[in-house]
Each structure stands twice: as C-alpha cells, then as structure tokens.
C-alpha cells in the first residue's frame, strides 16, 4: 500500500498560546512494500507525522492517501494500520495470547482462524512458548516483539513503529532491529519506522526520510543520503563520528581551509562550510601535502585509530576548542604532538554555502 502525504500540516497550540508547526507542509510518498525510516532529532515532527498517518491525531491541513483513498476522515480503527508504540502499550492485564488476539476479536475474525493466526504470529516473532505469560513477566525485548505481533496479526496494510527500540539495551537493540527487518521482508508490509538514531535508521531502512522542525530535509536510500547530503543539517545528522565542518573559502576555484589547499571546485569566490567525513582523510606524509595539523590526541579502538586535532593550539577555554576527527588505519604509528599531512578524498568532502545548502 503506497502512502502519500500532500501538504500535510499539524499545528499545535502551546501553553503560552503560540502556534507550533509540528509538521509543516509535508509532501511525501512512501512506496508500497518498503521499510522507511523517519529520522530526526527529538521534536522534529517525526512522531507527529506517524500519528497523523495512524489517525490518532488530526491534521490541521493537507491530505493523506492510502493508495487512491483519502484517509483524513477515516478513524484510526478503519485505516487498517498496525502501530507499535514506543512503550509498547501492551495491555498489562492480558496475557501475550490475549494481547495478540485482541485486534482479531474486535474485527470479529472467526475463532479458529483467529487462534491459528495468533499462534502463527507468535511463531513469527519467536514467542510461541510465552503465550500464557503476562507482559510484566517478559523482558523488554520480548514485550517489544509481542507489540509487533499484535500490530501484525490483523495483516494491516501499513505497519507503523514509533521509536520501537528506544527502551531496549544496546545489544538487544541490534538483535531486534535485525528481527524487524526480517519480519518486514517476510510480510512485505509497507512500514514506517520512526527513530532519532541515525545508525538504526540507516541499517534498517530501504529509504530514510530526514526531518527537522516539521520539514522534510531529504529522502533517499541511506547510503545515498549519507554520500550526498543536500544540506549541512543532514550531513551533520548522519554519520558517527559526526562529519567535520570547517570554515573555509573558495578562491580562484581552489578550496582553502585556513589558507591550506584541500581541493578544487569550479565555483565563484565565496565563504563556505566544508564538511569532511572522518574517514575522508588520507595521510600523506611523504609529499608533505599542504593540509596539515598537529595531533592532539590519539584513540585506538580495534582496527580504527581516531586522531583528534585541536585547530587552535593557543585557545585557553576548553569549551571553545575547535577540534576535528580523522579515522585512519590502525597501521599508522602516530603519536600525540606529531604533525600530520592529509589529502582529502573528494567524494567525502561536501561544500555548503553559508546558509548550509549544498553547492
């Protein structure tokens, strides 16, 4: 089921009577059968968007289409959606079985059929042994999977997940996100996955949608968005460690950082922000390339070594320190205090104008 949002807007009135545009004129098409990660910092409007799709909130303006059908007037229970809540919202007084069965009972599915599907669904999420337990007798990850089973058992047209992994510990989070991916592949249900964790979104989604202040910043396949951010916000939001941003300029078609040459671009002279991914630096000690800094700190974790550079040696206030990070192969033997010369991979360097738009 394809979901289309046209001009979708949700305005909340805050306590001091101000209008807050939680979702601001969003146009978005979610292709059928895909898993879409809706990504952004907290308060960006991603959960609001999800609740608008679900019908639990009513939009101020705009339309939502499921396929050809306009859904604005359709109440949530008629939209054919499954929703996994952030805190799962499992009914605490019902067993796992009763929780999964509940939507089927409401849809008046025939008893034997409902039983069969409940069991199938429990098997899909690997909980067929736990059917008679109550939610509080399950671990966080298991509760999570019950919530998914409950959302899926009525074979919804759309599956919505609201930060479903945020209450799990790190290890379980990895495991469960693989699980969600597997289930989505098996069921081929159009799925919208809301998260503030870029890594999570990147690893799980067919496509990601990056939001900020209620406005969609960029949509595309994860790697494509990572490689070709359309603005500074997206570039900064994706990737860990974060992209390094330098104040630089273009002079005579040469890109300069603190007057050191780092590359060439056919652009008029101007001030620019230069984003360089930490993995975009190539050490070039032999040629003594012009871009160089003194290493402040060396962190080696496993196969990666992170070099941290302090761009202003003389700065007194620690908080004012401008640093950048470069990830290099652990093979290089570099100590703090060494001066390192770099080349920058052109595909890992992004130029933005002073408004943060890609050049």
């Amino acid at each position, binding site marked *: 089921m394809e979901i289309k949002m046209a001009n979708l807007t949700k305005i909340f009135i805050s306590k001091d009577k101000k209008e807050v545009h939680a979702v601001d004129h969003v146009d978005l098409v979610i292709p059928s059968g895909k898993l879409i990660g809706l990504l952004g910092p907290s308060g960006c409007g991603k959960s609001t968007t999800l609740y608008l799709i679900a019908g639990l909130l009513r939009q101020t303006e705009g339309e939502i289409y499921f396929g050809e059908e306009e859904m604005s007037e359709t109440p949530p229970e*008629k939209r*054919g959606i499954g929703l996994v809540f952030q805190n799962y919202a499992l009914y605490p007084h019902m067993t796992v079985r009763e929780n999964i069965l509940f939507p089927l009972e409401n849809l008046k599915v025939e008893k034997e059929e409902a039983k069969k599907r409940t069991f199938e669904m429990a098997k899909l999420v690997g909980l067929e042994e736990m059917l008679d337990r109550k939610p509080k007798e399950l671990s966080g990850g298991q509760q999570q999977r019950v919530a998914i089973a409950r959302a899926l058992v009525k074979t919804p047209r759309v599956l919505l997940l609201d930060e479903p992994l945020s209450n799990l510990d790190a290890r379980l989070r990895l495991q469960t996100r693989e699980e969600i991916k597997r289930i989505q592949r098996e069921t081929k249900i159009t799925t919208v996955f809301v998260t503030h964790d870029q890594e999570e979104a990147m690893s799980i989604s067919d496509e990601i949608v990056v939001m900020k202040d209620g406005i969609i910043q960029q949509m595309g396949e994860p790697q494509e968005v990572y490689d070709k951010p359309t603005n500074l916000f997206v570039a900064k939001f994706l990737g860990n460690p974060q992209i390094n941003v330098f104040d630089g300029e273009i002079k005579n078609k040469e890109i300069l950082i603190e007057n050191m040459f780092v590359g060439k671009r056919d652009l008029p002279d101007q001030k620019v922000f230069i984003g360089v991914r930490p993995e975009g630096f190539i050490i070039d000690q032999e040629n003594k390339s012009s871009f160089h800094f003194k290493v402040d700190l060396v962190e080696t974790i496993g196969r990666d070594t992170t070099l941290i550079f302090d761009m202003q040696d003389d700065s007194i206030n620690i908080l004012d320190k401008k640093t950048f990070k470069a990830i290099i192969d652990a093979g290089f033997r570099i100590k703090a205090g060494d001066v390192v010369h770099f080349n920058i991979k052109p595909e890992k360097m992004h130029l933005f104008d002073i408004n943060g738009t890609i050049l």
Partner: protein
Amino acid sequence: MADIYVSNVKAYKAKKIASNVLLYAFLVIVALTILLPFYWMILSSLKSTVQIEQVPPILLMAPSDWKITNYTDLFVLVQSGQRAGEPLFPFFTYMKNTVVVSIITTIGTTITTVLAAFAFARLNFKGRDILFAILLGTMMVPGEIFILTNFVTVYRLGWYSISNQTYLDVLLAMTIPFMTSVFYIFYLRQTFKQIPNELYYAAKVDGTTDFKYLLKVMIPIALPTIITIIILNSMGAWSAYIWPALISCKDEYRLVSNGLRGAFTDTSTGRTDYGQQMAASVLVTLPLLILFFAFRKQIMRGVSRSGIKG
C-alpha cells in the same frame, strides 16, 4: 482481508455525532437527577402552606410568587412550653455551636495529624511499621463500637451532667474525642514522604532541629495537602448527628443536624410543616455549599486523591 478496512466515512461520522448527543443527554439527565433534591428543597421552602399542599405539586414558580415566610417563621419565638422564648428553629445558636466545634476539632486534628505524620514519614523508631499498621486497622472498625463506652468516659470526666452541664463541658465532649484521624495521617504521610531525603540531611548538616525542620520546611511544602485536610475536616461537624445529640443535655448546646429532625411536627396534631422543614434544610445546607464553592478545587482534588491513594 483489506475489505475490512474499507469504511463508510459518512456513516461513521453520523454515528459519532449520534453517540455524542446520547452521551450529553445521559449526562444531563444524571445532572438533573442530582440537582432535583436541591431544587425541590429550595422550591418547597419558598411555597406557602397552600401552594405546598397543592395537588398535583407545583414544579415551577415565578420569583414574584416566592414567599419567605417559611424562613421568617423559623425565627419566631416559641410562646410557651420547655423552649419558651427561643426561636422555633434556633438556627443561629446551632450554627454558632457547629462553627465553634468545627474550628476546635479541626485545630486539634491538624496538630495531632501533622505531628504524627511527621513521625511516621521522617523519623526512624522501633515499632513504627507495626504501630502504623495497627492505626490503619482501626479505620476498619465501625465507630459505633466506640460510642457507648466513650459516652461513659465523657460522663466520668464530668463533661456530661443533666443538671449542671456547662457550655465548656459540651465543647470538650464534642471535640476532644474527635481530634484524631488516622485517615488524614495516612494522607499527609504520603505527601511528607515525597519530600526528598536530601532536604532533611541538608538541614541536619546545618544543625536544624527536627521540629524546626518540620515547621520551616515540611509544613510549607505540604501546605496544599494540609489546607485540604483542614477544609475536609471542618465539614465533618455539619454531619455529626448522633454524638452531639447524645452528650448535649440542653437543646441550645446542639449542632445543626440535631435541630432538623422532628422539630417541625406539631406533636398535638401530628401535622408536619413541610415549608418550614425545607427552609431549615436549606439553611443548614447553605453554609456547606458556600464553603464548597469557595474551595471547590482544593476539596475536589483532596477527595479524589484520598480515594486514589487509599
């Protein structure tokens, strides 16, 4: 499967409006049922004897037809008999008694409650939990078990004497036994417990005594709860019926509830003056309602919390 979800939006909307109309209709009917006794009481108190005995009864009356004679009659002095020289319904005397009893009881209850709640919430002492459990247990015991022995106790303390009971005796008898409330201790203890321990330790480090800490920190922080307790408690005296009737030897020592029942039936004819009866009921109900509307938020919040937490 998907056809389940194809909806008839118009029908849904119509259904929703219909259900809202039904809801409001239900709530309005309930509201009218709740209000009917108040309305009937007030309306009847404004009717003349003729109007009151009209069949079928008058349900609506223009303000111009309202009579206040029922009210003024309440204050006409009785000519003869035991209560000669007193008003038919000595409302102001009863009101005064009730207010005085209410104030004294509330002050006493608040003091014992604050002190005890502090001890239970803040201090560690041997047997604390057992004692608290025993106190909670007494809430289960019907008060009727206490009342007869308490009467004897009051008698032995010299507060009850048919021949020479003083006003002070009556006040003592009506207030002292009711200066404790396990329920309010429980309620206040919960509030006290929410005050972070760090505040207490900080005060201890600064050399503050327990009592000063209670006075300067805990009471101000818990003031909303204490005010709620004061309001709820002060309403109690209005409903007290059996005890004041039991221990007051003279009519003029009684509380409002006692004056109401039986005062308006002419003993010689057995006829009841309903108008006067309703007027007296209005007078007794009014102070409570005024108190309620003055402190509506605190009262409703206090009562609902007491229900939830209990």
